[in-house]
């Protein structure tokens, strides 16, 4: 498995090169994606359209830089392409566009869509008697979208268990801390009351993630992964100003130094 710091270096360089992007919510995602793409998902990077693969829908599409780095490091496309983030014709769109890059199972970017799409995909796969699973990563700010709760209601009602949801609980959204903008607590209780099996873990601890994903339950599983927005870079951590801002030359240098 690639080291988390390599992914974080990729993310920072990509966003710096692009001159825009979302470092905070990409850095918080790193271990979740590492676990999924190296330990959890049944995939064949050389055959991205393989029918039997597990699927991932990154509903918080602004975390694209993290996903692109992971896909490149996993072998879906060349690592050299990472420096073309957000550039015309590169395929590394600002928010994931399925048809533009190998390894993407869904286009995302408008918050609140991914869970329902994951649910429809999971339903389709189960109708086909496929063993493939669907993983869906939500942001915690994204939980303010009403459509999330439409899907949160229907998935247990339809007894869909081939879907696992991960909430990247980094506590910060564009404007401010989630609790200051529009609190989503009590979070575990909300999902529990909708009929989900809820597990909370440290979203930066690989052992805890592994344990959380291996939870056995006959209900749909939601993992609340407690993370830090901007994780790994002291001046970005827990700071809403780094939700959607590119580091300049000096900031990039300092950030990369911290990842040494």
């Amino acid at each position, binding site marked *: 498995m690639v080291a988390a710091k390599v992914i974080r270096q990729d993310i920072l360089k990509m966003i710096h090169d692009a001159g825009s992007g979302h470092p905070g919510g990409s850095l918080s995602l790193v271990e979740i994606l590492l676990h999924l793409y190296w330990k959890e998902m049944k995939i064949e990077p050389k055959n991205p359209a393989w029918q039997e693969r597990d699927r991932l829908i990154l509903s918080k599409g602004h975390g694209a830089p993290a996903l692109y780095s992971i896909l490149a490091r996993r072998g879906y496309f060349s690592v050299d392409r990472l420096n073309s983030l957000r550039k015309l014709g590169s395929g590394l769109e600002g928010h994931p566009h399925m048809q533009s890059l190998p390894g993407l199972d869904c286009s995302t970017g408008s918050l609140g869509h991914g869970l*329902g799409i994951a649910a429809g995909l999971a339903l*389709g796969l189960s109708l*086909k008697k496929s063993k493939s699973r669907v993983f869906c990563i939500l942001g915690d700010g994204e939980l303010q979208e009403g459509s999330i709760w439409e899907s949160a209601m229907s998935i247990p009602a339809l007894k869909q268990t081939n879907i696992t949801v991960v909430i990247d609980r980094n506590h910060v959204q564009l404007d401010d801390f989630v609790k200051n903008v529009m609190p989503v607590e009590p979070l575990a209780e909300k999902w529990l009351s909708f009929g989900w099996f809820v597990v909370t873990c440290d979203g930066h601890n690989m052992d805890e993630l592994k344990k959380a994903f291996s939870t056995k339950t006959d209900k749909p599983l939601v993992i609340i992964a407690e993370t830090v927005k901007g994780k790994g870079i002291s001046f970005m951590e827990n700071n809403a100003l780094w939700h959607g801002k590119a580091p300049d030359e000096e900031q990039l240098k300092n950030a990369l130094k911290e990842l040494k």
Partner: protein
Amino acid sequence: MRPTREGYIEGLLEAAEMDKRVIVVDGDVSRSTGTIAFKRRFPDRFFNLGIAEQNMAEYSAGLALAGYIPFYSTYAVFAAGRAWDQIRTSICNMNLNVRIGGAHGGSSVGPDGATHQALEDIAITRVLPNMTVLVPADSNQTRQAVLASLDINGPVYIRYGRNPVPEVYNRDIPVVPGKGNLLLEGNHATIVAVGVMVAYALEAAEMLAAKGIYVSVIDMVSIKPLDTDLLLDAAEKSKFFVTAEDHQINGGLFGAVSEFLSQHAPCRIIPVAVNNRFGCSGTPEEVMKKLELTADIIKKKVEISLEID
């Protein structure tokens, strides 16, 4: 006289017999729109997600990603409007094989009033890249539109209505995306109509013929892609067009026809459409009269256009 929703359900049942990929996603209106018949016949391929249009659109996107052809339907105001961002950013942007059934389109839902009368759905679906928009005129054509949608690559919006409308077509006339139908030929003017207004256009043409005015009548069932060849042919024969739709004046059929002809065969085009206002309660006939969507109005507009000449 038959409601177009009956044609929709007939088409859906046949489509499901022919194609195992057909699935229906409903939003708690199966008794009202008639999809309950599908539930009875194909219980394993019917999913009622409750009153949650965004979720319906998202599930449909996911089912399409899994290789199915989901038809999701509810009242057109909600099918197209309530889930518009899902339709745009997920379904159309990924060019997914989702079919959206806009039931109770236009003023056909009369007594329910403004909230339930979809008068903007054509505009907001037509504007989306990759989307095909079909607005059939009667129940036979609606059945054909559903069947035709099976062969379309990408999303399709089909608008149909609640109240009985006159029969225009035989059962076996197919719907072809990008093709309209020339129902009458005349050289004085051309009426381009969709939906229930096609029957009114034919009625208007008959009244005009009695006065020695002969018009062409085009049913533009495929608003997107538009049958531009048919419009160009008509523009060669007559200088005046009247469009007729049970929809707002902006962005619908009048918009589509004007956008094309203004570039390729500039001419005068006069709309019969809802003049930038909301509907109200009343029987469908009363509401259509109030909104000035009648054969009489079409006839008058043709006469006005000819007087200007």
